[in-house]
């Protein structure tokens, strides 16, 4: 789906952000990306959608090079991106107008547009926001709108840059379950975050630093490495289960089950 080969990138008058990065996102894969501030995560996301061009190396989306600017529209039909800053991507005055904008540009008939908007407003639990002025929404509500605006387009791949950093725990859980369901139905996902609890559903996880990719593997493998290296946070249930020598658990529910089993074993 997305292939990055030996990618280098620098902003003007600044040190290199990415040096010799190789990443591949397969069709239907859910890739998580973690890393400190300034490690190049957002730059990587912008490169993947063709918003930035690499200084060196090749980057292809569905076989199309992002350097081929004549085919940028094709790339954007395949991929959608949810930006880190919730104010960075709203176009419409109201939530409905914002969701309609992209669908109209796809040239979809009105009944199809209506059906998709109904579907995603329901799925993300934001029906009551439909006619709200985006200006009056909170940061978390704007993040929901941005997610919905990308999801209604039903792209083959969704790139999420800190998509739920301002969303409360209950709402975050619903959104993450929905992202996992979309992936299960075939959408490729690239999910960038500082919060390891958000990445428990991903297939593969990479950790980025100024030195390049430092860790790579399944969430279980990478969280284990990070816990040993004491480098970054890992999900609390994972840390507890591993330190107690229990089967590894990524959710509170799974951990409680393991502890219950452990007690019965005693």
């Amino acid at each position: 789906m997305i292939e990055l080969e030996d990618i280098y990138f620098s902003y003007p008058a600044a040190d290199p952000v990415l040096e010799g990065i190789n990443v591949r996102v397969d069709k239907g894969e859910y890739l998580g990306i973690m890393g400190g501030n300034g490690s190049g995560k957002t730059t990587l996301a912008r490169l993947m959608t063709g918003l930035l061009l690499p200084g060196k190396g090749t980057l292809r989306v569905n076989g199309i090079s992002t350097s081929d600017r004549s085919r940028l529209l094709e790339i954007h039909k395949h991929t959608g991106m949810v930006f880190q800053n919730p104010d960075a991507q709203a176009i419409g005055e109201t939530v409905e107008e914002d969701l309609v904008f992209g669908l109209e540009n796809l040239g979809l008939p009105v009944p199809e547009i209506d059906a998709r908007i109904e579907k995603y407003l329901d799925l993300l639990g934001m029906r009551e926001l439909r006619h709200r002025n985006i200006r009056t929404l909170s940061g978390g509500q704007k993040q929901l709108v941005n997610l919905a605006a990308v999801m209604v387009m039903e792209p083959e791949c969704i790139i999420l840059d800190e998509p739920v950093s301002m969303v409360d725990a209950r709402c975050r859980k619903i959104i993450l379950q929905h992202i996992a369901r979309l992936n299960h139905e075939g959408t490729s996902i690239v999910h960038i975050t500082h919060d390891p609890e958000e990445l428990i559903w991903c297939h593969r996880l990479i950790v980025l630093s100024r030195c390049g990719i430092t860790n790579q593997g399944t969430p279980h493998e990478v969280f284990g490495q990070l816990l040993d290296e004491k480098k970054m946070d890992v999900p609390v249930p994972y840390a507890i289960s591993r330190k107690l020598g229990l089967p590894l658990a990524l959710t509170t529910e799974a951990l409680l089950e393991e502890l219950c089993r452990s007690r019965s074993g005693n």
Partner: protein
Amino acid sequence: MSIEIRQLTHIYDAGTSRETIALDRIDLTISKGTVFGLVGGIGSGKSTLASLMAGLGTPAQGSITIDGEPPYPGRNVGILFQQPEDFFFEKTLFEDMASGLLHLGLTEEEVHKRIHSTLDLLGLDHQILDRSPFHLNRGTLRLAAFATVLTMRPGYLILDEPTASLDPKSRKRLVEVIKRISGDIAIIYISHRLQEVVAISEYLAVLEQGKVAFTGTVPGYLDWATGQDAWEYLPVLNQVMYGLQRMGFDVDLNVACLEDALEQIRLSLERT
């Protein structure tokens, strides 16, 4: 010495088909010298309350006073917005940090002194002052935005999701600074990171659909959340302890850190 909020109501797009009651008869008192956590679901009114406390809007009904005076941004109250990076506009960070202070009528010498002492407080490298804010990474820029607000020396400081999009290292640094300065001023700490809010705050309020659902101390908050079986209001660590209590494990709900939780779970497993 406190912020007094009385019967505060705020409505967006009043009188139109989009009318939304954002805050509904809020009563709160926030005393100086404390960290006051403000939590709630998305759209519960936290950011609206923050901007009204910062004097950035006029409530439809009710009142807010700070030490008996109306809120006056930059004078008796400061706010760090959700995306403070958006508010940088000068060529260098120094020019950005100095602009508000010069507007207050401070001398250049005093401006220099305040900026450098605040950078020291936050452990920031003074060389960043000569750099463009647009070339700083997000973590450094967020700390620089925090420093900019601190140079104004507000007696009451509102932090709206200050650690969103920050890595654990930058988060830890910011939280340490907040703890260090909180004895002298009041900090209103708004965040979805419940673990952080519970760890840093002495008092907490929960907003639900524009109303105060709870206000009190942190232990009182944990009791309130478990009393309602409201798992979503518990930090993950406390969720685990609450779940264990419900399964009959002899553990405390109020644990300070992962090590405390592990110790209690081990002991409880040994006893069974």
